[in-house]
């Protein structure tokens, strides 16, 4: 079962509770692209029997990176692993973001732990104007923005408490700056995603949104990660996590 082993090459705290891991696994690195995720075993005993889905933040050669926020039991255990340890990781899984060379102007919107897949997309997709909108709770939680700057044309930042950048929600800042984008890439808390998706649809702007749902198998077999779409029930782990904004958040909008 060597396939599942990823070696921790580097471990770094990005904020007080966000940890970045550089991992080595040729197969996962080779198949990763923006928007896909990996399913990580967080503890070797059987107390926790579910893997945890974490987005791929970057991939190159035989390495890939993830960032995880310590939220509960699983990510707490994951934080104990150190450089040199082998992690049991399944992936990459799911369908990610797509890009076209015909786009002239695109936007990326990320909120909280949702910024990782869009940061990857902003680094990977090029040949057009790129505006990045990043929302954080507070100044102390801002991460990855320094290295992102060189990859984007405009970087808009907000904090809910106003400690840095635009004071308030990133959704509001986006509404102010929104122009005729060819594509908008979104990942963040569900409330944020819903608001952006509905605004974009109203303005006939295209978009792709990465959804979050609790998972079991992560590969499309157990059906626990269901979401309602305009094509019927779909499964976030297999049909997503990235969906066309035309297809999701469709309740009470008929």
């Amino acid at each position, binding site marked *: *079962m060597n396939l599942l082993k990823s070696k921790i090459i580097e471990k770094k705290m990005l904020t007080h509770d966000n940890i970045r891991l550089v991992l080595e696994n040729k197969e996962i690195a080779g198949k990763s692209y923006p928007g896909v995720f990996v399913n990580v*075993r967080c503890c070797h005993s*059987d*107390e*926790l*029997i*579910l*893997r945890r889905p974490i987005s791929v933040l970057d991939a190159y050669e035989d390495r890939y990176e993830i960032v995880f926020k310590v939220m509960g039991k699983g990510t707490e255990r994951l934080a104990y692993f150190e450089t040199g340890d082998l992690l049991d990781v*399944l992936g990459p899984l799911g369908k990610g973001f797509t890009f076209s060379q015909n786009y002239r102007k695109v936007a990326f919107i990320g909120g909280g732990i949702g910024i990782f897949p869009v940061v990857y997309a902003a680094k990977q997709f090029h040949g057009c104007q790129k505006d990045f909108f990043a929302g954080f709770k507070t100044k102390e939680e801002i991460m990855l923005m320094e290295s992102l700057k060189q990859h984007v044309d405009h970087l808009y930042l907000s904090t809910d408490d106003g400690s840095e950048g635009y004071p308030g929600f990133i959704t509001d800042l986006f509404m102010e700056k929104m122009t005729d984008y060819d594509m908008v890439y979104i990942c963040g808390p569900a409330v944020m995603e819903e608001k952006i998706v509905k605004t974009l649809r109203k303005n006939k702007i295209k978009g792709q949104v990465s959804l979050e*749902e*609790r*998972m*079991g*198998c*992560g*590969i*499309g*077999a*157990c*059906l*626990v*990660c*269901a*979401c309602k779409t305009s094509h*019927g*029930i779909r499964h976030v782990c*297999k049909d997503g996590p990235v969906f066309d904004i035309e297809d999701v958040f469709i309740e009470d909008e008929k």
Partner: protein
Amino acid sequence: MKHVNTSVNIAGVTFSNPVIAASGTYGFGREYGNYVDLNKLGGISVKGLTLLPREGNMPPRIAETPSGMLNSVGLENPGVERFISDEIPFLSQYDLKTIVNVAGNSIEDYVNMTLKLNETSVDMLEINLSCPNVKHGCVSFGVSEQGVYEVTKAVKEVSKKPVIIKLTPNVTSIASIAYKAQDAGADGVSLINTITGMKINVKTRRPVLYNNTGGLSGPAIRPIAVRMVHEVYQAIDIPIIGMGGITCLSDALEFIIAGASAVMIGTYNFMNPYLCEQIVIDLIDYMKHNNIDNIKEMVGSLRLNG
């Protein structure tokens, strides 16, 4: 190299080995086919089917609990007709035996589905009298001796396929229920389905699952499941397929020693997608090392204390 016989015969169906993927955890085999060689498994019990397609319950449908998980999928499935047209051709390419998990709202549903499946190449029906996540049918039959008797009898009357009954652990005496299934003509029983449970989010004072309650599965339920297989083995003569929290060969052997002719592997596939095939490999090794020529020697080989 010595040859060992891992094959088991259940109600006239020969499985190449006693390792079967459990219903609802393995879809229709397609996804896990990327990880294991499906030809190596004894069989698969497919996702529970209903007469008409079902969307299932609202999310969240899953909550993790100590060494286990609750699910409230609510039998999301494409319906028996689409299973027949879309999934049987896929599964027929493989050597493994196909067991169809049949879930109904009423006795007529069970009978109608059986009639449709009679005309297909599937190997066996597993009558689901134990899904705890739907409002009607299923477990409401499975918790009463009379309900189990009536559904089993009605299905057996029309079925051209061997019929096993999947039992719920949410009863006072699973052995008496199993006996009723045998009495009504069942060719075998499978147990256990999930145990009803609830997890509460203390902050919101709401259940974590949208459906409020769900079915507990995984290692947490294994001792209960093993005890139940042991009780049922003493009560009936027809074959038993045992399951509940199997994570490795040793867990599977517990069920076999307690009296199961075969085992089903469910939740732990999520942690280890290679698990079913791994258990088959480990079983062959184990038999060689322990001079067991035929797996049948182990079935019900339990020696009680005292």
